[in-house]
């Protein structure tokens, strides 16, 4: 699916500063970014450039020091902690580099986690879980625990967990960073399919040009500033 002309994510003049003792570290400085609805955006940059920080701000995991973050009609930077939690449950799906599955839960139970926050009954939750696992091709591994799954399979479970509530935006933090090339390619193909076939908006942080090639647009982040071209 081709990205629509409607911007979904608006980052305007965002600054993020961390304090380390008396020292202030400026991670993002007056950053502006717009991501279109149904766009697959790759965010690249060297370590410490602020990629994950930016992803956290978009996902409502952190708040900017200044500036505003709007996703659709919601001013994310103005929501309270409780409102943010509910907003994340409704609008954001996270895919982590190290999968971050709960080891004591089976694959299907892990996928079910975001659905526990909805009003769905058990039968409906099971139906949604089955659909999500089918979408990532892991129906046959539903009862397996993370320790018995390969890295690629664990990441598929992670993706199923991220899409099970049909979120507005999928945020992927180096989703292939812990996988071999073959598994990585499969995961990238899956993410691409979610974007193209289901119209999901994806923002993916990556170091890997091979991964960013799958995206419809790539932006580069260095020293808290964005550019359209790779940093020299």
């Amino acid at each position: 699916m081709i990205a629509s002309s409607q911007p979904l994510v608006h980052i305007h003049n965002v600054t993020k500063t961390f304090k380390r003792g008396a020292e202030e570290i400026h991670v993002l400085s007056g950053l502006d970014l717009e991501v279109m609805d149904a766009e697959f955006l790759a965010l690249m940059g060297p370590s410490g450039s602020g990629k994950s920080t930016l992803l956290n701000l978009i996902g409502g995991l952190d708040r900017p020091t200044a500036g505003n973050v709007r996703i659709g009609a919601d001013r994310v930077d103005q929501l309270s902690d409780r409102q943010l939690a509910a907003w994340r449950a409704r609008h954001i799906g996270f895919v982590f580099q190290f999968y971050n599955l709960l080891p004591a839960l089976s694959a299907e139970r892990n996928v079910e986690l975001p659905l526990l926050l909805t009003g769905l009954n058990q039968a409906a939750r099971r139906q949604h879980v089955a659909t999500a696992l089918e979408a990532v091709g892991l129906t046959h591994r539903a009862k397996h625990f993370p320790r018995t799954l390969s890295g690629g399979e664990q990441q598929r479970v992670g993706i199923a967990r991220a899409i099970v509530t049909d979120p507005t935006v999928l945020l992927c933090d180096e989703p292939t960073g812990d996988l071999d090339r073959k598994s990585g390619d499969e995961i990238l193909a899956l993410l691409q399919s979610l974007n193209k076939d289901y119209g999901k908006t994806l923002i993916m942080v990556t170091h890997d040009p091979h991964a960013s090639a799958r995206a419809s647009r790539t932006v580069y982040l260095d020293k808290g500033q964005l550019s359209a071209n790779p940093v020299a």
Partner: protein
Amino acid sequence: MKFLPLVWAGLKRKKLRTALTFLSIFIAFMLFAFLGALKEALSGGVSMAGLDRLIVRHKVSLIQTLPESYKGRIQSINGVEAVCHQTWFGGIYQDPKNFFPNMPVEPAAFLTMFPEFVLPDAQQRAWLGTRTGAIVGRLTAERFQWKVGDRIPLRSPIWGQPAGQAQWEFDIVGIYDGTKKGTDTSQLFFRYDYFEEARQREKGQVGWYTVRVADPARAAEIAATIDGEFANSPYETKTEPEGAFAQGFAQQIGDIGSIVMAVVGAVFFTILLVAGNTMVQSVRERTEELGVLKAIGFSNFLVLVLVLLESCCIAILGGFCGLGTAWLIIASGNPIPSLLPVFFLPTGSLVSGGLLAMALGIVAGLLPAWQAMRLRIADALRRGG
């Protein structure tokens, strides 16, 4: 309910640690239940004491006797409804280790005074008609497999041999039960007239009097009147409520309540540290997982509740299993009837044990739950990654 599998998964994460914590809580609550039963056994007389009964004893000591003639004088005091006396006999059956309390009493007055002892009518009549007759409580009867019709010998180091006989012998004419669970059915009572006739010293003396007052609200006033009646005599009295008397009797071996509280307090403080430490460790190890839960939309409050539920779950499971196991063991029988006339787990101890288990879960889980609630998602995920 839908979050319970998540709570359960948290407990299953480190099975050995969870099992050890469960066991420590299990043992603590078993101990709690046994101490509760022990406390009830040693101070049972206090809770079973009648509110309308007073005990009149020698002012100096319980082992000093009082004249039998006091009975009429006490009876004549305004507000006194009934009077009966008892005397410590200290009889030994075969071996000193076979201890059980035994006392001469006046059957009719005694049975009227203590309605908590239930004796069938036919056995009551048999007792009144048999001079050497004795009634024995169910606990002691079963302990020595005595039955109605048996003749049992007792040896009394206090009173020596009876006149004209080698030993005291009694005919079991009745076996009494208690109206309540805590009623002491370990005692043997025999007739005072037989005792008075056969004893060779201190004739006309009795151990203590039990007095029933018509109006319990006047008990203190009547007690003072009784003591006033015998003031400045060779046998001055001390009159107190039956509960206070029983408490004083129990406290001959120490303040049971304080001892139990001290032991329980020490055990629970230790268990609180163990359970609290387990939960703190568990939360610390799961920092990343808690961060993920928050990232996918679990609110801070929900995370707090989940950690608290986990803590409560193990405390309640361990506590209830400990209390239940102790209840089963205690219900299976009295291990030392010679020392503990009543041995059961009072409902109050069970209820307070259950509440204590819940409180333990909350207190042990509060700090880690608070930490989990305050956890910043970005920090948690960074620590994990």
